[in-house]
C-alpha cells in the first residue's frame, strides 16, 4: 500500500511539473500582457514594472524561478492587485469554493444515488420514468441556465432562497443545486444502469435462493455492488464541480476561487492564472488518488499494485 501510494505520488509530481511547464509557456505565447490597458503606459514605467515582476529576465530564468517558488508553495504576487499575493487569493477564495463544492458533491451523490436506486427497483414503472426525466433534464440543461432558472423561480418568484451573495447557508443552496444538477443526473443514470446490471446477476438469484428477504438482498447484495461505478465517477465528478464552480460563482456573486480565476483570466493576471491552475491540478490529482484508494478498499477484487497480497 505504502509503495503504491509512493509510486502514485511520484507520477503526480511528474504530471504537475508538466502542467506547470505547459501553463507557463501558454501564458507566454498568449497575446497581450497584464499591463495593457487603454492608457498606454510610459515606456520607463513599463520597464520598471517589468523589472519589478522579473519579466525583463530571459524566459529560462523566469521559468526556473517559478519552479523554485512553486516547490516552496509560493505562487508570487498578483500582477493586478498590488497588495495581494496569489497565496492570499487562494487562502481567501478556496474555503468558500470548498464549501460550495462539498455541498454540491453531497447533493449530487445523495440525490443521484437515491433516484437511481428507486428507478432501478421500480424498473419500467412510473418512478423509473420520473427519475429518468429528471436525469435527462439535469444532463441536458447546462448549469448556468439551471442557475438562472433556480434564481428566477425559487428566489425571485417564490422568495424561498436569496438570489445571490454568500452569507448564510440559505445563500449556498441555489448555487450548490445548480452546480450539482448535471453530475446528479449523471449519477442517477449510472446508479440505475448499474443496479439493473447487478439485479440481473446470478448472485442475486443465489441470495434469493437462500431465503433472504428482498430488503436484505437490496441493501446487502445489490446496492453495495451497484455503487462501485459511482465511486469511480467521483474523480471526474470533482473535476466537473471544480470547473463548474467558475461560472456558478460568477453568476451568484460568490467570492470563491473560481470567480477569482475568471477575473484573473480577463485581466491576464499571469501569476494568478498559473497559481490557481497549479492549485486546481493538485486538488484534482489528490482527489483521483483518494478515489482510487477508496475503490481498492471497497472492492476486494482490486489489489492496489505494490500492496501485500491477502491482507
Amino acid at each position, binding site marked *: 500500500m505504502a509503495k503504491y501510494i509512493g509510486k502514485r505520488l511520484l507520477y503526480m509530481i511528474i504530471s504537475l511539473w508538466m502542467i506547470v511547464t505547459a501553463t507557463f509557456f501558454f501564458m507566454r505565447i498568449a497575446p497581450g500582457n497584464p499591463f495593457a490597458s487603454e492608457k498606454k503606459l510610459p515606456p520607463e514605467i513599463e520597464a520598471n514594472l517589468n523589472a519589478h515582476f522579473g519579466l525583463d529576465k530571459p524566459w529560462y530564468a523566469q521559468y526556473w524561478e517559478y519552479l523554485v517558488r512553486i516547490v516552496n508553495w509560493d505562487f508570487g504576487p498578483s500582477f493586478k492587485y498590488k497588495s495581494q499575493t496569489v497565496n492570499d487569493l487562494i487562502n481567501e477564495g478556496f474555503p468558500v469554493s470548498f464549501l460550495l463544492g462539498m455541498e454540491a458533491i453531497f447533493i449530487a451523490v445523495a440525490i443521484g444515488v437515491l433516484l437511481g436506486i428507486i428507478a432501478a427497483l421500480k424498473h419500467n414503472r412510473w418512478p423509473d420514468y420520473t427519475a429518468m426525466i429528471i436525469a435527462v433534464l439535469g444532463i441536458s440543461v447546462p448549469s448556468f441556465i439551471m442557475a438562472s432558472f433556480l434564481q428566477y423561480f425559487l428566489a425571485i418568484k417564490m422568495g424561498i432562497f436569496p438570489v445571490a451573495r454568500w452569507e448564510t447557508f440559505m445563500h449556498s443552496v441555489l448555487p450548490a443545486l445548480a452546480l450539482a444538477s448535471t453530475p446528479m443526473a449523471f449519477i442517477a443514470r449510472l446508479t440505475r444502469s448499474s443496479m439493473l446490471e447487478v439485479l440481473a446477476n*446470478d*448472485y442475486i438469484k443465489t*441470495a*434469493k*435462493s*437462500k*431465503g433472504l428477504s428482498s430488503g436484505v438482498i437490496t441493501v446487502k*447484495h445489490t446496492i453495495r455492488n451497484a455503487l462501485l461505478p459511482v465511486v469511480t465517477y467521483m474523480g471526474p465528478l470533482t473535476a466537473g464541480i471544480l470547473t463548474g464552480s467558475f461560472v456558478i460563482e460568477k453568476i451568484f456573486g460568490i467570492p470563491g476561487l473560481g470567480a477569482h480565476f475568471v477575473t484573473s483570466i480577463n485581466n491576464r493576471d499571469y501569476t494568478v492564472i498559473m497559481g490557481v491552475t497549479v492549485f486546481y491540478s493538485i486538488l484534482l490529482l489528490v482527489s483521483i488518488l483518494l478515489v482510487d484508494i477508496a475503490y481498492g478498499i471497497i472492492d*476486494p*477484487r482490486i489489489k492496489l499494485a505494490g500492496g501485500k497480497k491477502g491482507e
Partner: protein
Amino acid sequence: MEKLLEIKNLEVSFQTYGGTVKAVRGVSFDLHKGETLAIVGESGSGKSVTSQSIMKLIPMPPGHISGGQILLNGDDIVPKTEKQMEKIRGKEISMIFQDPMTSLNPTMKIGNQITEGLIKHQNMSKQDAKNRAIELLRLVGIPMPEKRVNQYPHEFSGGMRQRAMIAIALAANPKLLIADEPTTALDVTIQAQILELMKDLQSKMDTSIIFITHDLGVVANVADRVAVMYAGQIVEMGTVDEIFYDPRHPYTWGLLASMPSVDSDHSADLAAIPGTPPDLTNPPKGDAFAARNSYALAIDFEEEPPMFQISETHFAKTWLLHPDAPKVEPPEAVKKRIRQLSSTFEKPVLVKEGK
C-alpha cells in the same frame, strides 16, 4: 418410499414483446426422499424454468405459473406468497447454479455468504454460524477452511467456488437440492470431483437431488431416475437403466446417439440431432419433435402423442408406442446398447389423462 415433491401438470409462461413463451407445457413428476432425479435435454428445453419454478425463483413478471401444482410434502407452493417462500428457500429447498464465477457475490466474504442463510433460518449467533461455515467448507473439501472463510470469491478457483456454492446450498440442511448444470462451466477433471462430492454428501445428508444437465454422459453416475425434456415437456422418463438400455423415444435415441461413450469404437457415428428446438411462442401442432424426427409419422404433425407406460417406472410420449404404429428400429449406436429389462410390461399401456 415417501414422496417429497410432486409436480402435477406444471405450466409456466413468459410474457415477452414477441408474445407468450410457453416455456413449460404440462410437466409432471415425483421425487422421493433421498432420490436423485436427472432432468436432461437440450438448451432451451425448459429445465431451468422448471426447476426455478419449484422455488418460485423465476422472474415474475415476465414469468408466470399458469397452471398445475407443486406439492412439497403434500403442500402446494404455487399459491404461496413471497414471505412464505422465504421460509422455504434455503431451508427446505436449495439451489446450485451453473456458473460459479457469477453465482457468488464478489464483494462479500465467502463465510458471510454461508452464514447469511444460517442466521436467517436457524437463528444462530454470528459466532456459531461462522463455526458452522468453517465446518461446511471442510465438509465440501475446501482445504484450510479457517482461512478460506474470510476470503472473497475471486480468491477461489472455479471448482472451489462451486464447492463453496454447495456449502451455501447445504448450510441449512435442505430436504431438496436442485443443481442446475452444476458442472457445465467446469473443466472435466473438476467436473468429476464435484459430482463425486455431491454423491458423497447426498449419502451423508440424505437429501433428494434434482440434477439438471444437457449431458447424458454424467447422468449414469449420479441419478436414480432420468426425465428427458424437450420443448417444455417431459418426453420420456424412467430409471437410469431404462433410459440407457431401453430408450423408447426418438429424442432420447438422438441424445444417446450424440453421447460420446467409452466403449464406442466408431466415433464417426456420433451424430448431433439435426435442426433446432421449436419456437415456444407458437409451439407446433402435433408433436414438437416431429420436424426434427426422421421416424415421424403422418399423425405426428396433426396430433400430440399421449404418454405411454412401458414399465412401472418407465414412460414415453411418442406415437411409436401406439399399437397401430409401424415397428421402427432405433439408430445403430442406440441399438447396440439395448438390453431386455425384466420389469418391462408386455405391451405399452396408454396413460389416461389426469393420472
